[in-house]
């Protein structure tokens, strides 16, 4: 006996993943107090179960596509694609973080709960087509991330990264929100599909969309809003960094993409901004990464650079570009997750082994780990038969499709610059003898699983991108 205005069951199905995540998050919170600290099994199992179920539940929206909750949410294959990605990311992050939490002696229950909630938020961002709803999703993931970033409470660096992330994040959010307000004022609606239809006040609309762009550009760490990224990524616990660099970023890109594709005004207005941001971001990331001495921080900068690459595809503003973005998000998530998980593991007690030089001779000490890291790096570099290469390939393709030759050339130049610092790590790992002896760390099963999945995925997508790419292309088409 449901209340009269209870939303139809369809809507519940369409939002199954988010619901599952929230439910399990709450469940963990309820269970956690009743199990002793030392005993982490159940919460992890629950978390994995939740993430896994959410991932499985993606099937439901996949079959019941359409609008939900009075058109606030739009479940199409685009959002399904992203839900799949985000779900997978969550599963991997949970797998990768469990041993880390144990090693660092951090409470695990809240951690998992927060991860699940954050994921739910990202899911909302991925499928919301109403700005305020999207905003709330954004806030869910952001606030959860703030907390996760400072999860190592007693590590000053962790607090600092959390503080910076929090202050600057909410600063940007304010911009985003003001943009929403202006758009609302200009058009009288916040539903993306109606924005174009409404008789808009041009100036306000421009301003609003502009503010929204600024807010999201910050979230995806586009230059000149990228400065927070290295500090936050470096300070945060590495598994969290893995999450931040893949999940929320993907969600933010998704939102940006949805706006770009749905709102014609935006795609017209944003072009040059995208162009400039893309160029700036690529250079900002790569140039700074060139001179880093810590692997973790270098990868943070490299993630900026990659955001730049993705923005190139944005600037292309065509289906191929959309598909390219989607594919790249997958490839990128794989590489970064793998890399950061591995670094988290190699970092050792209290993450002390982060300098590039500490990796000297890794190729001999831990061939497997070194090989995996090399693979991720080469994929980030964009060498063929890795996912990274095809991602870049599709981006090039999109850019050239809409005649952005010079942007493509800039991208080319950047990938050469990038080659230098990625190869430098490989050099250190394989071509330099170890200076001081780090004890070789056996790879625990969970981490091993993550590495296996990510490495295999990287290679597989590099050789046979067909499945993912077709899915991406099709969702890109349906997005219009």
């Amino acid at each position, binding site marked *: 006996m449901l209340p009269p205005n209870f939303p139809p069951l369809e809507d519940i199905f369409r939002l199954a993943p988010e619901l599952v995540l929230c439910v399990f998050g709450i469940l963990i919170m309820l269970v956690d107090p009743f199990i002793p600290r030392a005993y982490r099994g159940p919460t992890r199992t629950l978390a994995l179960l939740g993430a896994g179920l959410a991932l499985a539940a993606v099937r439901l929206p996949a079959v019941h596509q359409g609008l939900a909750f009075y058109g606030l949410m739009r479940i199409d294959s685009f959002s399904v694609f992203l839900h799949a990605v985000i779900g997978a990311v969550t599963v991997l992050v949970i797998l990768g973080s469990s041993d880390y939490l144990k090693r660092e002696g951090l409470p695990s229950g809240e951690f998992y709960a927060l991860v699940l909630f954050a994921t739910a938020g990202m899911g909302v961002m991925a499928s919301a087509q109403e700005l305020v709803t999207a905003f709330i999703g954004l806030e869910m993931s952001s606030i959860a991330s703030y907390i996760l970033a400072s999860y190592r409470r007693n590590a000053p660096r962790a607090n600092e990264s959390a503080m910076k992330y929090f202050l600057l994040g909410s600063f940007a959010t304010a911009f985003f929100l003001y943009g929403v307000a202006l758009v609302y004022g200009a058009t009288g609606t916040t539903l993306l599909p109606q924005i174009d239809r409404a008789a808009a006040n041009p100036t306000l609309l421009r301003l609003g969309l502009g503010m929204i762009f600024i807010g999201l550009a910050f979230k995806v760490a586009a230059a000149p809003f990228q400065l927070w990224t290295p500090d936050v990524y470096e300070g945060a616990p590495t598994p969290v960094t893995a999450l931040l660099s893949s999940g929320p970023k993907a969600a933010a890109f998704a939102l940006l993409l949805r706006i770009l594709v749905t709102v014609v005004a935006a795609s017209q207005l944003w072009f040059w901004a995208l162009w400039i941001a893309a160029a700036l971001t690529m250079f900002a990331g790569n140039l700074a990464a060139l001179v880093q001495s810590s692997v973790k921080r270098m990868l943070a900068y490299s993630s900026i650079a990659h955001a730049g690459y993705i923005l190139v595809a944005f600037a292309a503003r065509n289906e191929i570009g959309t598909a390219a973005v989607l594919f790249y998000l997958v490839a990128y998530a794989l590489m970064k997750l793998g890399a950061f998980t591995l670094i988290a593991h190699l970092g050792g007690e209290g993450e002390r082994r982060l300098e590039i030089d500490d990796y000297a001779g890794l190729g001999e000490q831990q061939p497997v780990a070194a090989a995996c890291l090399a693979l991720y790096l*080469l994929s980030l570099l964009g*060498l*063929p*038969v890795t996912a990274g*290469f095809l991602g870049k*390939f599709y981006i*090039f*393709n999109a850019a*050239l*499709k809409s005649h952005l*030759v010079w942007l*493509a*050339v800039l991208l*080319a*130049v950047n*990938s*050469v610059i990038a*080659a*230098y610092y990625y*190869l*430098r790590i490989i*050099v250190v790992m*394989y*071509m330099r003898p170890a200076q001081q002896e780090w004890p070789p760390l056996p790879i625990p099963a969970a981490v091993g699983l993550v590495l296996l999945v990510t490495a295999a995925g990287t290679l597989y997508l590099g050789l*046979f*991108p*067909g499945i993912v*790419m*077709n899915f991406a*292309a099709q969702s890109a088409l349906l997005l219009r």
Partner: protein
Amino acid sequence: MPNAYLLTVITFLPLAGSAALLLLRRDDHAWIRRLALVVSLAEFVISLLMLRGFDAASPFYQFEERRAWMLSPPILYHLGVDGISMFLVLLTTFLTPLALLASWNNIEKHVREFFVMLLVLETGMIGVFFALDLFMFFVFWEVMLLPMYFLIGIWGHERRIYAALKFVLYTMAGSVLMLVGILWLYNITGSFDLPVIQGLLQSGRVGLAPRAELLLFGAFFLAFAIKVPLFPLHTWLPDAHVEAPTAGSVILAGVLLKMGTYGLLRFCLPLFPEASRRMAPYVATLAIIGIVYGALVAMVQPDLKKLIAYSSVSHLGLVVLGIFAFNTISIEGSIYQMLNHGVSTGALFLLAGMLYDRRHTHLISEFGGLATPMPVLSALFLFVCLSSLGLPMLNGFVGEFLILLGTYGHNARWASFAATGVILSAIYLLWAYQRVFFGGVTAERNRALPDASGRERVILFTLAAVILWMGVGSAPFTRRMEASSQHVLNQMLRPQSYNAGRSAVPAGTAAVEKPAAPASLRGEAGNP
């Protein structure tokens, strides 16, 4: 049809071999070496099968394999071989076992990985020569970088890391732009399939604006020119050669450099004829500068390997010149010279490596009077030098002669300048030879150096035999290149280029019949 999978087998056999190597225990060096050698020899034998059933008369790709690989964008698994690529592949499969033998017991660390790398490298190189899909070509082109990078970086000498990075970054700088070019071409023609693109461009169904053609040409040319290496872009070569282990140098000089000239021949000329013609004078100038410059710089090198490296710059300049003289004779000469250079320079590097194994230095000043302790080695060294400086009846001469002959037919001035290289090569090679082998033994420690061992004799006499054979009986080779190199020129013919009367093909040297569409063009002409 028995040959249905021949090319695939040839391409991936070494890869399989390297996988097999990984199954062996890493300290079981004896078996690792043997297995690697067996694989590479088997590879060579199989690659010889191409000769059987290769139709020398047909200019088109043979043993073609065409399967869909990816759908959007449409990328094919497309292999094929013609008179140009076949010999280069044979060269590769011929040099690899020798390189293996050369590094039989001078590799101290990571023996297994070393041989794995060599075999992977072989796959990469062969793939480059076979690939007929631009995407595939690029994939192999890039993949092949990596093993080379490791070969130099891990097993190289003192400044190996600098050299390795320089090598990779140089090459990438070019190849990434080539990727842009490839995709641009795709967005124009809607296909990555070389024959299809060729057909579309040539039939005029898809036109290229002159500026676009020029830019595309530039994008491809840069990548190839760096690989060749053409004059101002050559500085990666000496470092890479000096630092690389012997096997690395051999493969690098023997095959990798050819990929550049091969690319010019396979892509730049047929796809962008107008641009090629417009740029030909400049390219030729650079090539000639390279010839003289390389020779002169080689002359004064104190380091044997560096000397050989610069001599490569000089020789390949000649090859490029031959290619951009646009006529059958010179192009055939260029192809032939690629093979010669592969064999001769490969042999020179092997010899330098043998000296290095004995004395752990490449400095000429460290040697002197070696003819006394090691007569056989010195005799063979002289033999190789002679072939490299183009003595008639040895392989080098045939290539040089044809290139210069053809070039002279196209532009006498170019040929005259280029021919000075003939003098200079004699100077630097004989001088170096004299300093290393003639005179009394200068350093006491050289007096007791052992002469060529059995293994080394096997390597060197094989090479010597090939050198002599290619020098005396070049006809069997050139006969198989004839059609293909002619075809390159025919592909350069465009309707408008007729009317413009700028057909670069001198009357008589190139038949002017319209080339029929390649077999693979039928079926899917003009993808979206």
